[in-house]
């Protein structure tokens, strides 16, 4: 194994981590502030990707598509909150899971009804095409670097928003005691809608960025959603910092596991068995890590104070 390959794989892990962070940040905010399990978060990711693909196809500009993905996902999120989610805050988690699962089905079939069953085309903007050279001679796709940078900017922005602004202060207050901040005269309904729309916009942004290098199709959100849940469980539910650390952990562990495990296993068993076996264990690896972290720290790495 060369240095170049190891560096490339590490960057791949970090890039997957930042993408997961965009998903997990919204999910964990909504859970932390409103105590709501939102299974339909993956649908907002899909809305972002479809909005970006449709607008990019109509106008020819990826950047307009990216803006549209933010707007449409935030809009869909706000609409979802006002019509359905708002009625679920005082119910138990099982009912929230049922209702938001129904939303997944509605969004999926609604999208199919609008766009058809075939995957849409979304390409990387010309500005970000191609690969750049890294130290050690490796080449790395420019677009993936752009995802890493965007993820880092969003993480920094969220940190500032939550720790330095009035809105952030209210979000933190809502996390610790929602009755008290309502009693202090904060419009809690609008605050909830805002937080929900913010989380939705981040999911939409992730969907649009990833849509350009993956397949924009119905049901694309659910596999990512499972990853995002693992991330927030590892990080501690409700904590943005936890989501950040959890996302990078999951991204790097998953990528390195897929890459290294089949090779390590060839030292112990025959190569013909090692390849499928290594792949199978690699796909379990993040869940093993999650189980281990839960055994050591049952509330995750950075539990939100509650």
């Amino acid at each position, binding site marked *: *194994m*060369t240095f*170049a*390959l190891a560096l*490339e*794989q590490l960057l*791949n892990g970090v*890039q*997957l981590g930042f993408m997961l962070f965009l998903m997990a940040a919204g999910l964990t905010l909504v859970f932390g502030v409103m105590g709501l399990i939102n299974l339909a978060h993956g649908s907002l990711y899909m809305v972002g990707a479809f909005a970006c693909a449709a607008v990019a196809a109509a106008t020819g500009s990826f950047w307009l598509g990216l803006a549209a993905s933010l707007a449409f996902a935030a809009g869909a999120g706000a609409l979802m909150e006002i019509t359905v989610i708002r009625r679920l805050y005082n119910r138990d988690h099982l009912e929230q899971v049922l209702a938001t699962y129904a939303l997944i089905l509605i969004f*999926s*079939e609604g999208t*199919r009804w609008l766009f058809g*069953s*075939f*995957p*849409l*085309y979304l*390409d*990387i903007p010309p500005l970000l*095409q*191609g*690969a750049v050279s890294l130290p050690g001679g*490796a*080449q*790395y*796709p*420019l*677009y*993936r670097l752009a995802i890493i940078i965007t993820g880092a900017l969003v993480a920094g922005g969220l940190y500032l928003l939550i720790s330095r602004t009035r809105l952030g202060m209210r979000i933190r207050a809502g996390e610790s005691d929602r009755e008290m901040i309502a009693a202090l005269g904060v419009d809690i309904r609008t605050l909830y809608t805002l937080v929900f729309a913010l989380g939705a916009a981040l999911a939409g942004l992730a969907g649009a960025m*990833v849509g*350009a*290098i*993956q*397949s*924009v*199709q*119905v*049901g*694309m959100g659910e*596999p*990512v959603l499972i990853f995002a849940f693992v991330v927030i469980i590892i990080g501690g539910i409700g904590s943005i910092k936890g989501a950040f650390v959890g996302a990078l952990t999951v991204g790097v562990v998953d*990528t*390195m596991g*897929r*890459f290294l495990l*089949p090779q390590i296993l060839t030292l112990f068993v025959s*190569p013909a068995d090692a*390849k*499928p076996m*290594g*792949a*199978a264990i*690699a*796909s379990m690896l993040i869940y093993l890590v999650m189980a281990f972290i839960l055994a050591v720290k049952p509330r995750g790495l950075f539990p939100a104070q509650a």
Partner: protein
Amino acid sequence: MKTSLLAATAALMLGSACMASAEPVKIGLITTLSGGGAGLGVDTRDGFMLAIKQSGRKDVTVVTEDDAQKPELAVQIADKMIQSENVDVLTGIVWSNLLMAVQPGVVAQGKFYVSTNAAPAALAGAKCDPLYFNAAYQNDNLHEAMGEYANKGYKKMFIMAPNYPAGKDSLTGFKRYYKGTVANEVYTQVGQTDYAAEIAQIRASGADGVFVFLPGGMGIAFMKQYAQSGVKTPIIGPGFSFSQDVLPAIGDAALGVKASGQWVKDLDNAANKAFVPAFEKEYGRLPSIYAVQAFDAAQLILSASSKASVKDAKAFAAALNAADIKSPRGNFKFNTNRHPIQDIYVTEVVKENGVLTNKTVEKIFTDHSDAYAKECKK
């Protein structure tokens, strides 16, 4: 008493009336019309219904249901169609794992199954059945063709497929014919969307060719990411990774890719020259391989039902086996295990009038059958 006697007489008369012409046939089409795999199911249904429509037959009815790509749901639908809707022939399932769940129940209840796509090794070999026909291929065929093709210019291949039975069959099929060195063999997760880790391994492997079997959305994601990675090693693969249903979503990243198929849009035969424009006119898009396979499955059932009564299983099976159809694929006949013997071609992705599609490069196998036929004893 009187009414039941009357009903019995009526039934008898109806029966004899039908014997005069052909017995009416009811077909149950179970396919994937929702979820991520729906594109394949929609093409299956449309190809099948085109043949039914063209035949103009009033004695053939088709009931269609969506299996949502779920094995348990497909089994329920099949049982319901057989027991309460009295269908005679079932067809349409896209996925091998669904077919493995459905097929035993169908043939155990004495009904025919004509597969439009799924073709797991077990059903072609030891578990074959006189009531089970496959109008598509056997799962390994297109991979075998690429193994044979790779012998012509690639000394060291990197091969990759998802970690599930069809994925393992794929790499086994490829290696059955490929005589060069396998640089690395990688199994990915089913439904995986990010291939950065695998692409890095391709870059490091020093292979001079890459064989990938990644159907549906997986292939779209891989091809787009590969094009951005700066790795220039040529890609080859079985036809379904670069079929008409996914090409528009991959975009120009697919240009130049060599693949295998038992049907290509530009095949030079009369049936194909009629089929492609007819499909395009009816549905406003180019047909995929799934549409062709379903079109032929429908033709087979139509042809058999005009020759024999579906209630007479032996005669109907013989009529199906005769494969008296004009397939857009050209040569088509059944082997002893009721799987096709057909030609297989190497294709290349090209752009025609701004639309991405496949064109024929060469015929790689003539009258190719599968490796499991000798294990079929029924």
